[in-house]
């Protein structure tokens, strides 16, 4: 299940609901990303995130399909917030359930790499120093690259 919306994300509530849909799964891994209070440019006031529907949703849904093909998952949940998001608030929530904890860890990790580097979002960071549009970090590309290497060697 996928939600892209400007409504606040409550990770605990999403986990609670997710648990009811995957009872006895064995393993559930969640990732919550929130807006850091500090960046290279100074104290962060907010992010402003633009999505382009349905391209943004289609891209994430395709990555979720990839994850479901690659790992034996009993459930997958992605919620991504858009619009203005204050420091400390949750931007993204991913949950993966599987009978195997390695599969749950890897699927959540894989989806976060997609969401952080390839997902169709434009992100403006607003600090005391002003507002800047953020381009992907080199580290994010490397993380995403790990999965490509894995696909080739298998």
């Amino acid at each position, binding site marked *: 299940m996928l939600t892209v919306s400007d409504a606040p994300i409550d990770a605990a509530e999403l986990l609670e609901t997710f648990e009811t849909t995957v009872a006895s799964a064995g393993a559930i891994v969640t990732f919550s990303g929130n807006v850091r209070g500090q960046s290279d440019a100074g104290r962060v006031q907010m992010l402003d995130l*633009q999505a382009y529907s349905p391209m943004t949703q*289609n891209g994430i849904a395709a990555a979720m399909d990839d994850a479901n093909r690659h790992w034996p998952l009993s459930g997958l949940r992605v919620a991504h917030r858009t619009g203005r998001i204050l420091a400390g608030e949750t931007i993204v929530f991913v949950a993966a359930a599987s009978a195997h904890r390695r599969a749950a860890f890897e699927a959540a990790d894989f989806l976060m790499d997609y969401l952080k580097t390839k997902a169709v979002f*434009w*992100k403006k960071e607003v600090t005391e120093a002003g507002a800047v549009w953020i381009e992907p970090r080199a580290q994010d590309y490397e993380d995403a690259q790990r999965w490509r290497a894995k696909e080739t060697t298998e």
Partner: protein
Amino acid sequence: MAKMLYFGRLSDLTGFVEETLDLPGHIQTAGDLRQWLDLRFDGDGALLEPTVRIAINSELCFDSSAISDTDEIALLPPVGGG
């Protein structure tokens, strides 16, 4: 009337997130549109960068792709992830 969408730094450059406009008759392709918009917004080449992609009705297209005055046309700088 075409619906134009400008994302990321292009919304700062153009001053619009979204606008509706009548495309001049000589604009037949996505490439034509790029040139025209770059002049119109004084982009100094910002809209000509190959990393800026164009989507017609939510599908990424090439500069040679035909556009029509009823399309939704989006200008997309490199995506930064969430």
